[in-house]
């Protein structure tokens, strides 16, 4: 099985190499993307096989590749955790590649890095030593950077790519020392060696901090999330789908692998606290920003921040419960995190693909230039509705199942018995619930502005339904979203090997048959989506019958009521734009309630004085606090360092030589001092 896996990886690399000459040929991009679909399906089959075979915990087979770092060979393994994330990667990768196949990329520059991106993620997930994992991780970062920068003719894309590269470098600069600390302590890079010597004391604290910074920065956790809303719109749609659906999950995989698996099961309760806090902040911030943005892809990227935050809450709770010896609850929290990772990967991929279709068909990403697309693009609108309902965590769709499980785990936070953690868990519950509600509001706003109402521009009115293959590329993820929502129980059963890797072989998935169990013991809450679907269907049928019985007349379409506005003049064939809600208008209540304190939102009315002839103006703006607190100081630091270094260039030859001599002497003195002690 591992041999087949390495063959798939090699095939992806070959596809990337072939993509360079093929990108500019007529059918070349199709060939590459078709190959990616095949490779991703192969990954799905392998991962599902491994999960069904219950690829035992850490004792599974390890394949040593015939090459690797200078001191050894690269190791691959497919244990439960790897297989679960490989399944996620394969599913989202296949959907995104199918979409790319149906919807040929406009930029030839985005063809060759795409298989490399997929291959890097797969390598990072199946690596069995720190070096290979970091190699795959960096491959993923660089390839996705090339994809973000593919359309570099626009200044904003260049800016996004630059920031993205800096954040990727920061992640590497944190993760490499994290693995270095572990490996230096354990004396080897392979996971088996690292697991055998879990870190303690300040070493463990350092690994926690560096891992959270490095993997969290790549996953888009606050306050290192600033690259997400910039990079996602810059990349082609299928790439943004993959970045959001799979890449952030690979970063979370690294986080889970590092903190829950490699650092050993004996870490204390407080280990979960940083993850819980960071996750809750990300969830609220992302959901709130999603309500204020007026670009579809930026909005979806902010929603990704929220979901990544929720998954991190789950991981943090799992760490804390494990530290408090509450095995079943830890399994509940970890199961929620794993399930939400998969569910979010699927529905967010669907939503980004929908955004891509809308951009292609209606010519804009801005909410204020779209509208009424449900008439022009009914299939796309239907798929979008499925994805949006899942993102708004409505039952019986997939988002609800995992968020329900997560809230159950949060509500059980009081059982840790530590008063500080109990308060934190209560606050986390409130914040997670608030984030879910905010996300639902953002999704309602997205669907309403894009698909309902009237077209807002002539270009938007000329939208058309997507082609046949592209329609399938949207229908398949929509169907998967429904399916995952209806069958969370069997899915969690499939995740059992992953849970055993994270929490030890005693952990059991919080599921029984088709139902999810929200706690321990017989009297615990349970959620059975199939039953819920039946109830909902019965209720809907009853309502329909009742309506039918009360009004036996035929349905007729009348003229649309124009809300009391006067009829638009003839030169506005799509109606007066001012008589439709705008993105900023819907966002206003939340911007005033929460935005002023959390996002420094400002509103200003520019009223001309009596007698002035200029028009009055209204401006509303907000700024992400992370820019002021993290990015701006970092930029200032960079400028200061650059100015310092610039001064070195003016040194004379003798002073340059003296610098080298001084450095040599300092090193020798350090050596002498070390020997003396």
């Amino acid at each position: 099985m591992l041999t087949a896996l390495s063959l798939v990886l090699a095939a992806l690399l070959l596809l990337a190499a072939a993509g360079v000459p093929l990108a500019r040929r007529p059918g070349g991009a199709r060939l590459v993307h078709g190959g990616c679909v095949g490779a991703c399906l192969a990954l799905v089959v392998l991962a599902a096989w491994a999960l069904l075979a219950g690829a035992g915990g850490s004792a599974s087979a390890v394949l040593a590749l015939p090459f690797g770092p200078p001191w050894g060979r690269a190791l691959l393994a497919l244990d439960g955790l790897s297989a679960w994330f490989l399944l996620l990667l394969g599913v989202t990768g296949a959907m995104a590649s199918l979409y790319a196949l149906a919807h040929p990329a406009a930029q030839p520059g985005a063809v060759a890095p795409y298989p490399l991106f997929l291959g890097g993620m797969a390598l990072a997930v199946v690596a069995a030593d720190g070096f290979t994992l970091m190699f795959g991780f960096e491959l993923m970062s660089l390839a996705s950077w090339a994809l973000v920068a593919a359309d570099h003719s626009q200044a904003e894309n260049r800016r996004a790519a630059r920031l993205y590269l800096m954040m990727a470098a920061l992640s590497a600069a944190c993760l490499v020392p994290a693995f270095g600390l572990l490996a230096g302590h354990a004396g080897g890079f392979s996971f088996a060696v690292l697991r055998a010597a879990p870190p303690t004391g300040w070493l463990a604290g350092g690994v926690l901090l560096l891992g959270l910074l490095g993997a969290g920065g790549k996953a888009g956790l606050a306050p290192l999330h600033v690259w997400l809303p910039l990079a996602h719109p810059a990349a082609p749609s299928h790439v943004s789908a993959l970045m959001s659906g799979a890449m952030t999950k690979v970063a979370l995989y690294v986080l889970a692998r590092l903190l829950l698996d490699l650092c050993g099961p004996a870490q204390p309760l407080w280990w979960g606290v940083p993850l819980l806090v960071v996750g809750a902040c990300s969830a609220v911030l992302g959901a709130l920003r999603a309500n204020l943005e007026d670009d579809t892809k930026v909005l979806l990227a902010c929603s990704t921040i929220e979901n990544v935050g929720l998954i991190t809450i789950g991981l943090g709770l799992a760490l804390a419960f494990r530290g408090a010896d509450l095995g079943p609850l830890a399994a509940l929290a970890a199961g929620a995190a794993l399930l939400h990772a998969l569910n979010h990967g699927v529905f967010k991929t669907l939503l980004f693909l929908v955004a891509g279709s809308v951009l292609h068909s209606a010519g804009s990403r801005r909410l204020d230039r779209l509208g009424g697309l449900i008439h022009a693009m009914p299939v796309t609108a239907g798929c979008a509705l499925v994805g949006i309902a899942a993102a708004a965590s409505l039952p019986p769709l997939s988002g609800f199942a995992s968020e329900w499980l997560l809230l159950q785990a949060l509500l059980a936070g009081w059982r840790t018995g530590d008063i500080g953690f109990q308060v934190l868990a209560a606050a986390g519950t409130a914040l997670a619930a608030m984030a879910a509600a905010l996300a639902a509001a953002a999704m309602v706003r997205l669907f309403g502005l894009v698909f309902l109402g009237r077209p807002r521009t002539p270009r938007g009115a000329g939208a058309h339904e997507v082609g046949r293959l592209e329609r399938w590329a949207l229908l398949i993820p929509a169907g998967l979203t429904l399916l995952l929502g209806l069958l969370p129980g069997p899915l969690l059963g499939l995740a059992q090997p992953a849970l055993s890797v994270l929490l030890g072989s005693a952990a059991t998935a919080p599921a029984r048959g088709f139902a999810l169990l929200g706690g321990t013991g017989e009297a615990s809450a349970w959620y059975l989506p199939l039953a819920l679907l039946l109830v909902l269907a019965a209720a809907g049928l009853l309502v329909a019958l009742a309506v039918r019985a009360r009004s036996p007349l035929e349905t007729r379409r009348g003229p649309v009521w124009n809300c009391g506005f006067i009829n638009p003049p003839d030169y506005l064939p799509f109606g007066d734009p001012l008589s439709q809600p705008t993105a900023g208008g819907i966002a206003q209540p939340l911007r005033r309630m929460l935005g002023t304190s959390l996002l420094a939102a400002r509103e200003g009315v520019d009223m001309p004085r009596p007698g002035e002839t200029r028009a009055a103006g209204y401006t509303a703006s907000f700024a992400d606090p992370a820019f002021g607190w993290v990015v701006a100081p970092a930029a200032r630091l960079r400028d200061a360092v650059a100015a310092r270094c610039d001064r070195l260039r003016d040194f004379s030859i003798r002073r340059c030589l003296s610098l080298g001599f001084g450095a040599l002497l300092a090193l020798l003195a350090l050596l002498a001092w070390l020997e003396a002690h």
Partner: protein
Amino acid sequence: MGKLPYDIAHLLGGAMLLLSFVLLYQRRVQAVINAFGLQGGVLALAAAWQAWVQGAPELYLTALIAFVAKALLIPLALRAIVRRMNLHRSVETALGIGASMMAGVAVVALAILVVLPITAGARAIAREDLALALSVVLLGMLMMITRRNAISQVVGLMSLENGLVLAAVGVAGMPLVVELSTAALVLVVFVVAGVFVFQIRERFDSVDTAALERSRGEGPS
């Protein structure tokens, strides 16, 4: 191995170190060149002695190269340059002699402190040689940064290389190829440095490297 080979190797190495101090101490260019030639000669002797002690005939070749290149050719060429440029009377104005000597002593102490504990397992003769060689290398660097005259800086570089060769001959098993390439490298460096000195002289009418700083077009002029 008896006591005598050790003593003589130690003596030759010490002589090289002494000559390094002489280089650091001399202020007249001609005297610097003389001391450098002498150091090359001592290096050749040390290499020959190691060849005899270790029974390694290829080290005789090293000794021959060191003698011909460093004791004869390079000093003669340097002297020719000095004569052509009429630098007989020029006197260095760099870090004061006292300060240089004190820095030199400190550097030697550091070298010994570093090398002796590290090489605790090695042969005594290699240990002493390594400490002396590292001192010579560091003194060569010190000379490069305390002098302003381009010729003195070239001599500092060559003296640094002498230290490297001393270290190489002290350790048994250094391949001949490495020695030959090092020697070739030194000659190339010498040629480049010579051309460079002439160019500086032609442009600025002085061999003081401070003249270069004004012409970089970046700093305050």
